[in-house]
């Protein structure tokens, strides 16, 4: 049944390592608080989301971006600074103004690239059966949310390194908090499609509420699982 042996699917030559959080207490606390904050904010906005998906999704983009940016800045090592992520840095010595501006540049860079990924994510949703002639704002906005959740932190920590991104795109990156959260949010969005066809006539079955909900839930689950349980593991197809 299974084709035995790791045949051609081997990783790129240079082994890549899971991302470690910044070695500060603040980073650890924020990293714990972040999913809780995300979920509770989502829970509070849920009635509004069901009532008017487009405007709610649009209005919550900015808060979500703010949340993700602060999470990234406070907890994650920006691209380039991660050459020795495991090494214990001396607390305080990194907080130079030079580093802050570099972080802000990375944030902007990551935001722009995440924006670029929105049409791609929307196209994938359409290929999976999302409406193409109608509900275009819905699809774009749900893609924007997924991009901020799943793509933005990845770019923040990995930049646009081709080899690394090939590893990410082939889901072969070692699992860490960031990558796990991304995979989780995609899987969650995938599972979010399950209740759509049911004839329960609930308002929350409207496009794209279940997808976004799945993405948020998957993000949190993936982040926790990636940061603890599955850390360092790799996903094998065969």
């Amino acid at each position, binding site marked *: 049944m299974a084709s035995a042996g790791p045949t051609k699917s081997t990783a790129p030559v240079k082994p890549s390592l899971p991302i470690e959080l910044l070695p500060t207490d603040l980073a650890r606390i924020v990293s714990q608080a972040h999913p809780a904050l995300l979920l509770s904010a989502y829970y509070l906005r849920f009635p509004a989301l069901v009532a008017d998906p487009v405007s709610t999704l649009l209005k919550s983009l900015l808060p979500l971006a703010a949340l993700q940016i602060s999470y990234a800045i406070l907890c994650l090592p920006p691209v380039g600074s991660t050459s020795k992520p495991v090494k214990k840095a001396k607390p305080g010595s990194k907080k130079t103004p030079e580093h802050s501006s570099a972080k802000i540049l990375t944030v902007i860079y990551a935001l722009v690239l995440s924006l670029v990924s929105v049409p791609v994510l929307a196209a994938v949703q359409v290929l999976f059966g999302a409406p193409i002639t109608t509900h275009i704002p819905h699809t774009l906005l749900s893609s924007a949310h997924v991009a901020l959740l799943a793509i933005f932190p990845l770019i923040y920590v990995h930049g646009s390194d081709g080899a690394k991104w090939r590893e990410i795109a082939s889901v072969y990156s070692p699992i860490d908090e960031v990558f796990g959260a991304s995979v989780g949010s995609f899987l969650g969005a995938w599972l979010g499609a399950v209740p759509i066809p*049911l004839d329960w006539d609930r308002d929350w079955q409207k496009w794209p509420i279940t997808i976004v909900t799945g993405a948020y839930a998957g993000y949190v689950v993936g982040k926790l699982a990636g940061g603890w349980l599955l850390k360092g593991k790799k996903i094998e197809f065969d």
Partner: protein
Amino acid sequence: MADPPPAPKVFKDAVPRAAPGNYDSIAAQYERARAAEEKDDQERVGGILGGLGLSRREGRGKEEKGAFERLNEVKERRFRGEWLWVVGFWVWLLCIHAAGLYFFTKGFLLTRLVLEEKSTCAEPPIALSTRFSGAGTPEAGCWHPKTFDKAVVIIIDALRYDFTVPFKNSTDNPSQAFHNALPFLYETAEKQPQNAFLLPFIADPPTTTLCRLKGLTTGTLPTFIDAGSNFAGEAIEEDNLLMQMKDAGRRIVHLGDDTWTALFPGYFEDGISRAYDSFNVWDLHTVDNGVVEHIMPLLSAEKKGEWDVMIAHFLGVDHAGHRYGPNHPAMTAKLEQMNGVLRDVVEALDDETLLVVMGDHGMDGKGDHGGESDDEVQAALWMYSKRDTFGRTKPEFRIPPATAKERPVNQIDLVPTLALLLGLPIPFNNLGRPIEEAFAGVKGTAWEKLAAVARMTAAGIKRYQAAYYVAQGVDESTVDGSPKALWATAETTIAGTRKHQNWQEGYTAFLAFQEETLRICRSLWARFDVPCMILGIGILAGGVLALMLYANGNSDDGNAIDDIDLDRAELQLELDNFAKGDAAPLPDETTTRLLFRGALMGSLLGSLLCPALWGMNGSENVLDFGLAVGAISGLLGVLYQDMRRRMSFGNPLPTTIWGWLAVIFTVSQSIGFASNSYTIWEDSILLFFLGTFGVASAFSALRLEIAADRALGIYHSVAFVALGWAASFSKLCREEQMPYCRSTYYASATSSTSAPWQLIIPFVVAAVLPAIIKSFYTGSRSYEGLAPAWISWAFRFGLVLSAIFWTLDAADDGEWFPNLPSGLLKNIRVPIAQTVFALSLVAGSIAFSYAPPCISISTTATPTPGSQITNSSGARVTILGFANANGTRYLLLVTNILLCVLMVQKPMGAGAISLMAWQILTLLEILDLLSLTSSPIGPIVLALLGSFHFFKTGHQATLSSIQWESAFIPLHTIRYPWSPVLVALNFFGAQILAVSAVPLIVLWKQKPRKKGLLRSVVTALSWHVAYYAVVCLATTMWAGHLRRHLMLFRIFSPKFMTAAFVLLVVDVIGICVALVGVRFNTLSVSEVFGWA
């Protein structure tokens, strides 16, 4: 097979270094195969190849070559033998599936005892409440004074109620072609209420003409099994109106639809009756014109004496619906014609004749029928008499109902109404009630008469009920909710004083009794034989288990290691042993043999034990009992053999993500069929799954090391998803999907013809599809041998013919050339279709069976790197297409099937099937690149593709989406067995194509002399069939479990029937095309390259 070769496979043309001893044979065989074409090359090639062999085999004598040939013969014999075992197993599996479905169906489909009793004129079910002279004779009226001497019954097939009521045109709701085209019925009913009335006439599903005619004449409810026999009617044995007419000496004349003559053979007056073929739905006019031609003379004064009852059955409206849909000018024209005919008939009518006009069922949005949607069951009933007869019991009933929801009558109500109006006894099985308007008197106050007819009818129903309980062996008093109390109330109400009021109350009380009895009967006949259903489900589940064991066993059997050096050494050893005079190696004990022997032994033991077991429980039908025992013991035999072989069960769960995906796709969908939503939206779910597979394969392709492989893998994955998505624009929505779905399969939602722009599709297909297939051949440099001639010419020629056929068809439908004699276009296009079938089935099969592999052997001065072999003398030989010799040849067979399937699909469907063919080819490349050819994911995705494109070819899991007209594509009339085969080819086209392509998963990019090919093909086929078997088992279970569900007959039952038929069709095609094709393919390839 199980392990992929380590080399990149994109241009895998490298021929392995010469294996000892075999090139002589290759040369010899190959020379023979190509002798006709390449006389010049032949010697050189032969010489070179011979030299190759000699370079290693020099010095060995002739004896050795002989040994090699003999070894080959032994291997060929072994292959043929093994193949027979495989076919044996699959035939057995087909029988198991059929047996399981048979038992489930037997318990599931509603059954009703047919009683032999008949009503007679002299024996009313209850004493008459009023005496009248001549009572008990047909002349005066058997059970009630008769109102009319004669009757004309006109059936306008598929006359939906809203065709007859006026429609106010508005901008939000514009009128459609069928609106206001037949105003005559409504006008008369409105203006002369004492002469005519118009009411909605509700049919009991299934809404096929045959079932409806049974209901309309016997007055009883149909059983579901009747639906299946629409192709060939059977005579009605039960008591019915026509039988009563005949017994009373009434002469019946029949005109129109020949279903009547099938149901009532010998009932109709010779000489003046005229029956016409009913199934040629393309023909809108022959039947109607024939009826019109004969009806008017029969109504004339001189011929009136030759008949008492006339039945005229028009089919034009129904055929216009099937062919064009209700919203088409042809429908307007047809309804207007009917309007005129009815006007003329009324003119010619005399005072003593009753005229009844009715539809036997309605039609859905596309003009088809068979199911139980509102549009399908709501027909119209209109009665007319020159003499003032009819009345309304309330003033507001004067205007005919505006919609079919108001004051509807059941179709079975016609039976007692007509019987009592004509003075006949009510047929014994009747459950209907007299229609109020017919007996209410002109003033609408004839309560005494209404009470009398209601009482008489109710008494008949009561008598029937008693007889039914007796026949069933049930004591009536033990049945819960018996309507006996209602009967008693009704009797006491009218037994008292003869006051006006009491009659009305009595009438209502008898109606209440009838209504309750009808309700009970409906639920009673919806009584399922649960043990029988469980037996069926058990056999199907056993079949699935056996199939899984079979697939796992086969894939566990020797995972051949793909190593050229090892192969060569093995062959050398084998050959040496063989030459030394050792006996030929014994045939392996394969899973197929093992399990099939188990099945045979089990069945044998079972049938030996059968008489003993039967003696123990006795009451069953012998044949059924034998079948059940045979099936179960066969399954037990398989299980026993498997248990004996392996001491412990391994982990039955998949071990890879791909395996899990295959399981998730199959199982989640099967579970989903328990919900009506997931059943309704199956097409979207399949698109979702196919997209998931494509994305997963793209991820996986990104992991490939070689950049070219990676690019190809991503390209094919993206193409796979995009093609499926493009195909998803071809939609035929089922009623339940509204309003979230828009049909695109036909010109509009209320049509069943293609839009003009859709006619471009077949031409585009003819231009592009062969080129696409060619590109997959050239990818492995296999566009050699027969392939160029067949694909670029024969296949394309067939596609062009098919495109022309559908253009002519559209020209005929749209009446683009009104000046052409009618039937000319049909006469031109039928031979075209026949040519395509001859090309694909006859010529194609012959070509496939005799074709050499798609390879070319040549010597080149500057050979392509990596694709040459060097012989001892330094010359170079190139064998193009060597690496894909098995797959490319088999693909020829798939193109034959593809051509056949394309021919019977409408233009939109042809586009979808072409996209599917392209998707199959990309799937093959993906599986090969990702080394997944032995994983179950390939066959399962292929099955998903088949199921997905089932919907994209304009089908749904509903009866009304069957495109019956495909029976006429290459034929003028119904012909057995071809017509049902054609309809099946249209309905299951996508699944048929998918199962035919299953061997390609294994054979694609597979070089000759590969070991265990047949076993791998069989494994793939097992996984593929397992998908359908699991879905069939699940839908069967759900249909059985949800047998009281409101949506049973609308959603679950049609889905179960579709899944059941798909499983059987896939089994049959798997044996007849896939296995037979692999046999020819392997024989041909091995003849050239030697046996593995």
